[in-house]
């Protein structure tokens, strides 16, 4: 039906936004060093795709991102299953969790930098900390949503608790966990870039952005870096949404608006 029309309109919107940025800069409404023309930014972004050191920086960022996110999954899913299926543990730990979660994780950057220095370890630790929460909460929530009838049936046939967990609860919770991972992926990218911007040396996308910001007339490079960061975010989100649709077709239609601590 109108899908094509929508896509056309979307493309038009992108062109319009691009054109406005270009015009505002070219017409001299804003100082050129503040907002370089969109075409120049885009050209620089494409140019960076051929830059070895830049690509290695992006690689370093993605490395920390993937490692941190992987660790978060490995920690949060079992913990979430534990919290979700043993109410006493849940009640016991909840207060601690509720005190830890609202803490904005970028605020931990100074502390963790003091503890671990400013290398990959710091990045990974922070990324992990920040991305644990959405996965953990989604896992606990998903467990509460599993079909009680299926569980009772399995129990009636004499399956043990672990079997129920593995055969009913885990598959039932999987879409929720996947959604949590998707949200955490965005959070993890935020933390990776933020840590790099603050640490200021080493290699990474955030470091490229931070150092370009210090250079005179570096806004073009900063914006090119931002374009890259946004593109990475989009690609990551797109891949995860696609994966969710493939794996759990019955939950489709829901889209994340997720960024968080």
């Amino acid at each position, binding site marked *: 039906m109108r899908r094509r029309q*929508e896509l056309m*309109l979307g*493309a038009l*919107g*992108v062109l319009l936004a691009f054109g406005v940025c270009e015009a505002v800069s070219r017409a001299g409404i804003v100082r050129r060093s503040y*907002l370089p023309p969109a075409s120049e930014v885009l050209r620089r972004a494409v140019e960076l795709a051929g830059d070895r050191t830049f690509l290695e920086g992006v690689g370093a960022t993605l490395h920390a991102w993937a490692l941190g996110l992987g660790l978060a999954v490995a920690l949060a899913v079992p913990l979430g299953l534990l919290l979700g*299926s*043993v*109410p*006493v543990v849940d*009640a016991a730990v909840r*207060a601690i969790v*509720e*005190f830890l979660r*609202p803490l*904005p994780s970028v*605020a*931990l950057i*100074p*502390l963790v930098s*003091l503890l671990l220095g400013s290398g990959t370890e710091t990045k990974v630790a922070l990324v992990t900390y920040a991305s644990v*929460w*959405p996965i953990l*909460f*989604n896992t*606990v*929530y998903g*467990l*509460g949503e599993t079909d*009680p*009838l299926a569980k*009772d*049936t399995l*129990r*009636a046939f*004499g399956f043990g608790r672990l079997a129920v967990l593995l055969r009913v609860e885990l598959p039932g919770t999987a879409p929720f966990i996947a959604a949590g991972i998707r*949200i955490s992926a965005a*959070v993890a990218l*935020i933390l990776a*870039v933020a840590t790099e*911007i*603050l640490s200021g040396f080493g290699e990474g996308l955030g470091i490229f952005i931070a150092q370009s*910001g210090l250079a005179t007339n570096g806004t073009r490079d*900063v914006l090119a870096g*931002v374009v890259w960061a*946004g593109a*990475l*975010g989009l690609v990551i*989100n797109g891949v995860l949404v696609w994966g969710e649709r493939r794996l759990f077709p*019955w939950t*489709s*239609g*829901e*889209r*994340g*608006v*997720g*960024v*968080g*601590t």
Partner: protein
Amino acid sequence: MSGGGDSSDGEEAGRGGKARAGLGGPDSEAQGVTEAPLAGRPRSEAQGVTEAPPTGRPRSEAQGVTEAPPTGRRSTPFAHPDTPPTPPPRHQPSRPRLPAGLPHALLRWVVLALAVAAWELAARVHGSVYFPPPGRIARHMYDLWFSGPVRHLFLTEAAVADILPSLGRMAAGFALAAVAGIALGVAVGRSRRAYALCNPVLQFARAVPPPALVPVFVVVFDFGTPMQIASIVFSAVWPVLINTAEGARNTDPLRLDVAAVLRLGPVERLRFLILPSALPRIFAGLRLSLSLSLILMVFSELLPGTANGIGFTLTDAQTRSDLLTVWAALVLLGALGHLLNTALLAVEKRLVGKGRATA
């Protein structure tokens, strides 16, 4: 509603108004609204997971009680043959181990107190510089910020100089983002075309990790409050905008028809129809924006070149290796985050309840 929770109608709900127009009776709207906290939000966004515990917990609690006696497991289904499949049954506990909410709440605080005590003990025994005992952190917080004269509400000079500017910037940034986000979101969401036009750009803006843009604002505004407010607004506006647009877009078409028949003017339509039905989504966006505001507030103050604020206190203490102040600032930020979130939830409870009544 993006994200109808149930497997069966998830598709229609997700695809938005068109499918719903076919399905929707007048009560599909109200249903959508009540569904939101249960199914839509927790999955669709990060902070929405705050909703999860209230709905999720009591249920798993109820299950847990029946699960608890290891021998009784098998007999459970037979003991309650008439349990309906949904909503999950709240079994009468065969052994009332945790009957009311009180023991759980008690357990929670006891465990928290125990954890703090354990930390205190371990820190004192070990004497690590990096992990000072909580007692000393609390003491330090008191000395640093809350030991001032009564007429300053017990705030010290340092608190006035550091906490208040941070809060002010955050409030300004969040308020601006909320107003702009809701206004633009309604404008975008009202027209299907406008929505299609803006959607890709919005998606990209949202995908950019917010801290990446802060260096741009540093170049444009130089260091200082305008830069910080700008970076807060620019990051926090997208979740509100996108969520509001989504909410406004999915106003029940039937109700819009009724409004047309009743000859409601645009203002009335906005006031009685669009805003109330978008309200749950708006608040989902606001909650995300609030946590983003806090993040950006701290982040923009962490950058070298700032002169005051909680984030500045943090970096300043970091360079002096003053671990006690670092911890104090962290505890303060955690408490602040908790407080702000609770406050927003309270406002939401009032407004969404009211909105539903008028809708």
